[in-house]
């Protein structure tokens, strides 16, 4: 079975402090600290309060990171999550405006997300010959299509009663409420991936699906569960997004899938499956968010910010190749 650590940037033995620093997660911590120094040095407004104040919008996205990590570790992919966010937020708004009490609105949002995830999971296990990229491309269009049909020509819906949403958007001291939920979700998924049989099964399936199947792992059941979990988390993203948008429109959540996948890949999770861990993805998410906030405060053109994040992604994926190349050179000598 392949190792759980992220990107191999060295052939060091897998124990001891040195290997910990040499691991990709260790490097990410250093990068995170570097980004903080960078942020403070380029923007006089880059401080604890402001970063936390700008964070809720990104935190909503980070919920999906954990489900996406599971899917990627399985060797699958799901590019429909942005549309699930749109559909669940839209339906939640309609439920709220139809007079449903706030807890029901939350349940509708999570329920629609879960349902969409289950549809993805069902299709993924029934259409095994199709790449999941194609299946979820289809559902991506379908889910957003349903949202667009529901929204009709107006194209947007807003919550009439925002009292509940304002509660969700509240802050405890400087900390946004959603941060606590993100951390809680991180802990739950960390235990799930690292301390349970289910978690180990995901790595086994991602490393070699056929071998895992013959080892008695219910591969298709695990895949279904992961898609459903991710769908549910997209619903969570939807409700927290509503807390800052107070409504939904046809563009809500567009592009989220790629941002979340980027965070995972930057965090060392291989899209080929079986490699990487949640810690790396979690730190990577905050690295990307902090870079966006810092550059934003410096009024850097947002397109340039995307270029920078894309470049970082490619460099991070190339790292093993670079370090292997260096090693090969050294051995030749």
């Amino acid at each position, binding site marked *: 079975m392949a190792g759980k650590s992220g990107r191999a940037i*060295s052939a060091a033995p897998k124990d001891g402090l040195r290997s910990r620093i040499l691991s990709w997660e260790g490097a990410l911590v250093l990068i995170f600290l570097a980004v903080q120094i960078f942020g403070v040095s380029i923007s*006089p407004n880059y401080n604890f309060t402001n970063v936390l104040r700008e964070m809720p*919008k990104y935190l909503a996205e980070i919920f999906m990171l954990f489900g996406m990590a599971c899917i990627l570790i399985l060797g699958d992919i799901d590019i429909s999550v942005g549309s699930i966010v749109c559909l669940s937020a839209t339906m939640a708004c309609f439920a709220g405006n139809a007079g449903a009490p706030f807890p029901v609105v939350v349940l509708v949002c999570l329920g629609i997300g879960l349902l969409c995830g289950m549809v993805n999971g069902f299709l993924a296990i029934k259409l095994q010959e199709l790449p999941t990229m194609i299946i979820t491309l289809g559902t991506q269009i379908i889910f957003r299509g349903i949202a*667009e049909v529901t929204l009709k020509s107006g*194209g947007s819906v807003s919550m009439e009663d925002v009292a509940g949403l304002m509660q969700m958007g509240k802050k405890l001291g400087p900390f946004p409420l959603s941060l606590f939920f993100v951390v809680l979700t991180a802990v739950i998924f960390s235990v799930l991936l690292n301390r349970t049989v289910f978690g180990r099964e995901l790595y086994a399936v991602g490393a070699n699906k056929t071998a895992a199947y013959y080892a008695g792992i219910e591969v298709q059941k695990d895949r279904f569960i992961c898609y459903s979990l991710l769908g549910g988390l997209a619903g969570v993203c939807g409700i927290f997004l509503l807390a800052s948008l107070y409504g939904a429109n046809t*563009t809500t959540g567009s592009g989220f899938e790629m941002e979340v996948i980027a965070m995972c890949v930057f965090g060392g999770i291989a899209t080929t499956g079986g490699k990487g861990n949640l810690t790396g993805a979690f730190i990577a998410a905050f690295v990307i968010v902090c870079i966006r906030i810092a550059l934003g405060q*410096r009024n850097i053109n947002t397109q340039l910010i995307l270029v920078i994040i894309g*470049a970082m992604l490619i460099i991070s994926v190339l790292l093993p190749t670079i*370090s292997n190349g260096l090693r090969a050179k050294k051995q030749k000598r």
Partner: protein
Amino acid sequence: MKKKLISVLVSAGMIAALLAGCGSSTPESSPASSGAAAAAEPAESADTAATDGAAETSGSGAAGHTYAIVTKAAGNPYMERMSSGFQGVIEAAGGTCIVQNPEAATADAQISVIQSLISQGVDSIAVAANDANALTAALTEAKDAGIQVLTLDSDVNAAARRTFCNQAGIQEVGQALIDAVYDLTGGKGQYAILSATSQATNQNAWIDAMKTIAENDDKYSGLELVEVAYGDDEPQKSTDQTQALLQNYPELKVICAPTTVGISAAAKVLQDQKSSVKLTGLGLPSEMAEYIGSDGAHSCPYMFLWNPIDLGKLAAYTSIALVDGTITGKAGDSFEAGDMENSPYTVTDMSDGTGTEIILGPPFRFDPDNIAEWAEVY
């Protein structure tokens, strides 16, 4: 072993260098996004102005204050003209100007930008909203932080801003467009509307005004609106939608596109296909010059627009007046707007009674007689 450690550090260093590199390039990138030159100096001083903005005593006019404008998205020539007008006035008045173009034409992207401006402690934010409701929370937060919030081009909920710089009264635009359709169809026949996104506030308001006017006056009873198509302000999608309209409605006489992206895409399709369908709407003169003409070889006999540069300028004068306390955004407030044609401007109540607005002026007609002259302006 050591080599490997070094390789890790080198890699981390590369990333750090990449980041540092973009940090130092700020002054160049900022004017690039605003489309106007000579902004390196103001961009550099933006930080200092923003940090001690609170402590700054309100000196003469705009000096020492920071005024921000948030456009709908980058890569939209209309928005670029608007922000350059805004920037010109602010900088001439001695203020610091921040121009922000969100990465996509969505409310989400605008929220990130607004949050960042709150962190920077700017004095005012003028925003062309991508969604009427979704910005409410972010703009309310800005207001609570003591920032003067106004909208231009596309409005938000009245409670979330002081006032709205309206490029044209909804009624005035709706009337001009439906009259153009009436004229070009000869008073009878099918017409279609090619809009931007289905949730664009201003597009929907104008289209609704057109429909209402047509329904309430027998003069327009011969006109039949067959479809409102949405090109999402993307050239390719607008082209596809135009072709679909031509295919689905062979009897179509006129397409009315109240969006600059839509009208230029439709103009090209109609002219290339030598279609007999005529086009009107709201377009940018420089983009539409080759399509405007009264003969059969041109697809658009005439169209309308206001001057986006003037709209940006009006928003800039409004920002300055709000920040220095000349106006508070209440109906009846009045202020001078430099050398602008309709100055002084007065804040008025909106027709729906929810808030206030400042109307730039009636829409301007571009026809074969004046298009060459205006094409060089914007």
